[in-house]
């Protein structure tokens, strides 16, 4: 059958990667000085910018204040130039609202909100270029931004999108793979304890494959956590060199 093969017989994917290989991950922390925390992250061709403000006093609706912990307010949006065709409605559509809710649930699991009662933490993520794995890239960028802001977290939150093709799990899907009929699953993991912060799938997958797919996702997330760890440590060392410690 002519056409694009998601996984060739030799085990190569559309962009030449192997099944379990992640895309190249590059990131920088502290890209904005006016925000409390910020980070820029690229995973392959998907680029995301995350900005964190807080914790600060509740703004807007005081009725949403929680007496014993902080409220995490997430907003996900895509730049109009992020996709192949110019996006008409960058935020406010169903997909963005759902993503924002998932990001909120993910970070409520990791951030130690009980240290800041009656306050609010804002996490804004913008996709600058979309090439698959949007949710995962947002989570990874937001993790770095939260660490940059100095907000205490139990552990990193690392995410990865995986899919199933020909009995093989593929790690870190790109746009062509996501839209090529692959059953994709997104997993957000706290790597040190192996705890799952969020698991999301809205495709059709045979029950027998689920465990394999989750295992593959967890391995991929642990790979992501190694790279993020490097980025954080390097940023700390650079900061200490500047302050002359």
């Amino acid at each position: 059958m002519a056409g694009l093969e998601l996984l060739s017989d030799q085990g190569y994917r559309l962009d030449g990667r192997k099944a379990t290989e992640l895309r190249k991950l590059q990131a920088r922390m502290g890209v904005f000085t006016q925000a409390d925390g910020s980070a820029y992250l690229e995973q392959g061709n998907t680029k995301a910018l995350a900005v964190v403000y807080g914790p600060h006093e509740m703004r807007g609706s005081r009725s949403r204040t929680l007496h014993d912990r902080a409220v995490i307010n997430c907003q996900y949006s895509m730049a109009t130039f992020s996709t192949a065709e110019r996006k008409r409605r960058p935020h406010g559509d169903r997909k963005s609202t759902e993503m924002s809710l998932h990001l909120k649930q993910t970070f409520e699991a990791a951030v130690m909100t009980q240290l800041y009662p009656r306050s609010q933490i804002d996490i804004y993520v913008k996709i600058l270029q979309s090439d698959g794995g949007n949710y995962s890239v947002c989570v990874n960028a937001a993790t770095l931004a939260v660490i940059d802001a100095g907000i205490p977290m139990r552990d990193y939150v690392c995410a990865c999108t995986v899919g199933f093709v020909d009995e093989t799990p593929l790690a870190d899907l790109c746009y062509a793979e996501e839209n090529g009929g692959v059953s994709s699953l997104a997993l957000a993991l706290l790597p040190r304890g192996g705890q799952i912060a969020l698991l999301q799938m809205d495709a059709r997958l045979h029950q027998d494959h689920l465990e394999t797919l989750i295992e593959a996702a967890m391995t991929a997330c642990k790979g992501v956590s190694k790279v993020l760890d490097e980025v954080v440590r390097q940023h700390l060392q650079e900061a200490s060199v500047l302050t002359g410690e």
Partner: protein
Amino acid sequence: NMSPMKLCVPGDKLCSAEDCIPGTGVYLRHGYIYSSLAGYVLRKNEGEELPVISVVRETETQLLPDVGAIVTCKVETYKSFRPGDIVLAKVISLGDVQSNYLLTTAENELGVVVAHSEAGAQMVPISWCEMQCPLTHAKEFRKVARVQPEYLQA
């Protein structure tokens, strides 16, 4: 008293709860102490049996005031202050569900620092409870803060 500082990231296992007491920037889980911030590990011997372990960052961003923190605020009550005064107050409670922070000025060092008279000029303190306007020489009641002389500007 303090050992050399080591880098750590959120989720790093620092030590067992039997070796150290958890301080700030760390959390306790299943008998072990983990870091919750990206920064440097600080072990301090406070004189108790176990050292206190905490994680600090270079830029100590004061995120939210805690009980006992000194804060500045503008106030609205007429008894010892007037609207627009700059006041030094202490946080005594984080408040309950409805209200926010509870502050006090019931100390010698707390109270009004800068106030303007009804004529509009900045007043000079003449006692702990009175301030005088330099233009009209009228005295007004304020609860004046006892600021250390070296912090007063001419």
